[in-house]
């Protein structure tokens, strides 16, 4: 055991963990909106809209995240019209490509979580709202969404942790996140176990915090 290396690499890895957290938070926020949008589309009665939303979540859940990142980062640059458009400013940056891939991926999972949460709402609750003369829109925003959010908290907590682990793939497109820096230190010092313990410890600490925050929220909003 090389304790000196462990102590020396800790601040570097901690700095890299900030990159990981940035990637995670931005993609979760964007992904939540995508997820909500597609969950609503899934509940739509129009069969084309419905199938489209299903197809989106099927494709993004059925393929590895690595493929998705590579298609966006390496693949999209090939389309000539895209390269000359304003989108290229975003798509040439590995940082934004990673975020787009993560957001689309977590959006697909989130849409499934939210959809099943919407479907578990008892029709009686919506009917009660209707019989009180509340408009559909207000029922949706004030009744369905809060219940769905509470229902989906445990599953969404898992999704956050999966996404935290998913951000490690950013290192494959040259980003120096926690895994990227860990790999760099391993390949320069050839001390995989020490670096794994420190980097893994930081990841575990983050999962621990996320797990407990979700638990706290579940308790707070239980009924």
């Amino acid at each position: 055991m090389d304790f000196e290396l462990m102590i020396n690499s800790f601040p570097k890895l901690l700095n890299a963990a900030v990159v990981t957290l940035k990637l995670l938070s931005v993609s979760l926020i964007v992904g939540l909106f995508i997820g909500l949008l597609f969950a609503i589309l899934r509940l739509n009665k129009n069969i084309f809209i419905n199938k489209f939303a299903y197809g989106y979540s099927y494709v993004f859940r059925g393929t590895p995240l690595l493929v998705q990142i590579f298609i966006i980062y390496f693949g999209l640059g090939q389309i000539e019209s895209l390269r000359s458009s304003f989108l290229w400013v975003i798509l040439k940056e590995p940082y934004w490509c990673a975020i787009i891939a993560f957001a689309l991926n977590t959006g697909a999972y989130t849409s499934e979580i939210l959809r099943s949460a919407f479907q578990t709402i008892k029709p009686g609750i919506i009917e009660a709202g209707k019989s009180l003369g509340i408009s559909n829109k207000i029922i949706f925003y004030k009744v369905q969404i809060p219940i769905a959010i509470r229902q989906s908290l445990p599953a969404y907590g898992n999704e956050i942790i999966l996404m935290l682990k998913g951000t490690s793939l950013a290192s494959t497109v040259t980003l120096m996140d926690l895994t990227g820096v860990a790999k760099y230190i391993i390949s320069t010092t050839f001390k995989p176990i020490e670096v794994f313990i420190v980097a893994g410890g930081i990841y575990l600490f983050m999962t621990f915090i996320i797990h407990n925050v979700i638990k706290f929220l579940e308790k707070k909003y239980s009924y």
Partner: protein
Amino acid sequence: MELLAFGDTGWGDELFRATLMTVAVSITAMLIGFSFAAIFTPLKLSKFKFLNLIANIYTTVIRGVPELLVIYLFFFGGSGAIMFVASMFGYNDYIEINAFVTGSFAIGIISGAYSTEVFRGAIQSIDEGQFEAAKVLGFSKFKQFYKIVLPQMLRLAIPNLSNVWQITLKDTSLISVTGLVEIMRQSYIAAGSTRDPLFFYSFAAVLYLLLTFISMKLINKLEVKYSRGY
């Protein structure tokens, strides 16, 4: 389309072999995972707090640390560890373990942590009365497990195991970083030499979708088979 031709002109046969490799790694990893689960599930259910702790550390660490980091640990640390063990037996030459073994082991350990949780849940949801009935009828511990616990456990575990299979299948894409030529790596090579990454990565996505689609169909059949009588 000529990019996918079989033979020297296209990448069809290479990608086909790579797909088989992905399937082979996934199945090997899943089986390694089952062996880990066979060790750690009893530890999780044991009465001894210390054994519980060991199993909990395994599942928590593996499920809380990114797969890629575990793969790097095995990729960079694997041959070192084997050489260390070999040196204790007096063998001091350089040993290189091949990418297939490292890859399936790394993915296997990850998939084992998920399988452990699935089996634990399945055993715990078997009715307490079943164990008591077995005891009353004088079944040995061994027979109780094979004749009573295992069949019921499988039925309960299959839907969740199919999720573990999906995760394992997708995780194999990560061992492309170690140079094992599976779907992802082959697409990377093809994309590099034809300068057509969009096509090859999209095709890789289609291959993965096909694999998940076919395996879901097969698992559904198993599910029907094991839930006969319910």
